[in-house]
């Protein structure tokens, strides 16, 4: 009974108003009429990070700002801008962080090298084991 009341009281709470009352921007949830441009925009949107829910791409996010970012990407692609230029425009403002395709900067080199180093270590270990087994 008490639990039931508690449960019912959940429905009495007011939702937090964290979103605006304006409808989504023109190109937030609408595809571009040109399928080739839409494909380019789609591919880019998969690789741009949402500023609000920082683990999601703007293609996956329902945040209003993500919608406005999709609108920005589609508008610029429709105006003939290349996806690389749109990405560069955003990187200029938010840093490489905004892009899920980081450039191969020197700071990332150890990360690319790590699998090779680990593989080499593994091979050495196995060779040693085999030798020990033979003796």
């Amino acid at each position, binding site marked *: 009974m008490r639990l039931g009341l508690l449960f019912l009281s959940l429905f009495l709470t007011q939702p937090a*108003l964290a979103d605006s009352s304006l409808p989504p921007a023109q190109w937030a949830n609408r595809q571009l009429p040109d399928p080739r441009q839409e494909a380019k925009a789609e591919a880019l949107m998969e690789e741009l990070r949402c500023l609000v829910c*920082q683990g999601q791409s703007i293609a996956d996010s329902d945040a209003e700002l993500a919608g406005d970012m999709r609108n920005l990407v589609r508008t610029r692609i429709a105006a003939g801008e290349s996806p690389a230029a749109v990405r560069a425009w955003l990187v200029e403002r938010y840093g490489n962080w905004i892009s899920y395709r980081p450039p191969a900067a020197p700071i990332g080199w150890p990360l690319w090298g790590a699998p090779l180093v680990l593989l080499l270590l593994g091979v050495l270990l196995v060779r040693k084991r085999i030798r020990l087994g033979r003796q």
Partner: protein
Amino acid sequence: MNRWLRLLPVALLGLLLAALVWRLAHPEDTTIRSRLAGKPVPEFALPPAQPNQPGLASADLATGQPHLVNLFASWCVPCVAEAPVLQQLKARGVVIDGIAIRDRPEDLAAFLAARGNPFERIGADNASRVQLALGSAGVPESFVVDGRGIIRHQHVGPIEPADVPVILTQLEQAR
């Protein structure tokens, strides 16, 4: 020698645990900062957000005196807390320009009537275009822009009473 080598994995595990505990104790700063500090305000021209007040263009910022550009919205809860502090700054002679993010004129009018209107100009940014051009990631955020239209400082989140001295110093330095 071999005995010490056997301890290596345990040592590595200890190192890993220490790194994890350290990260838990010192979480990463997830604040998103604009990279445009020190650069000119990108060119923009926003229509008026209110019928009785002018809109905001980048040209209005390069007037020879520093401006505080405040990105806000009537639907943004922390903006309510920030409103009295903006009034305080205005009383101290700070020129404050507003950019209203995704707001309806009637909602904005009600917000300004209830919380005060410290703004010289308010531009309507209905698709967050200028917000994205500035490298901002939410509301409220404020930018100190010097008299030549160069961004000098970004404040992420509401300006609280404790932040007033920093903002005033930044505005003074932008003179």
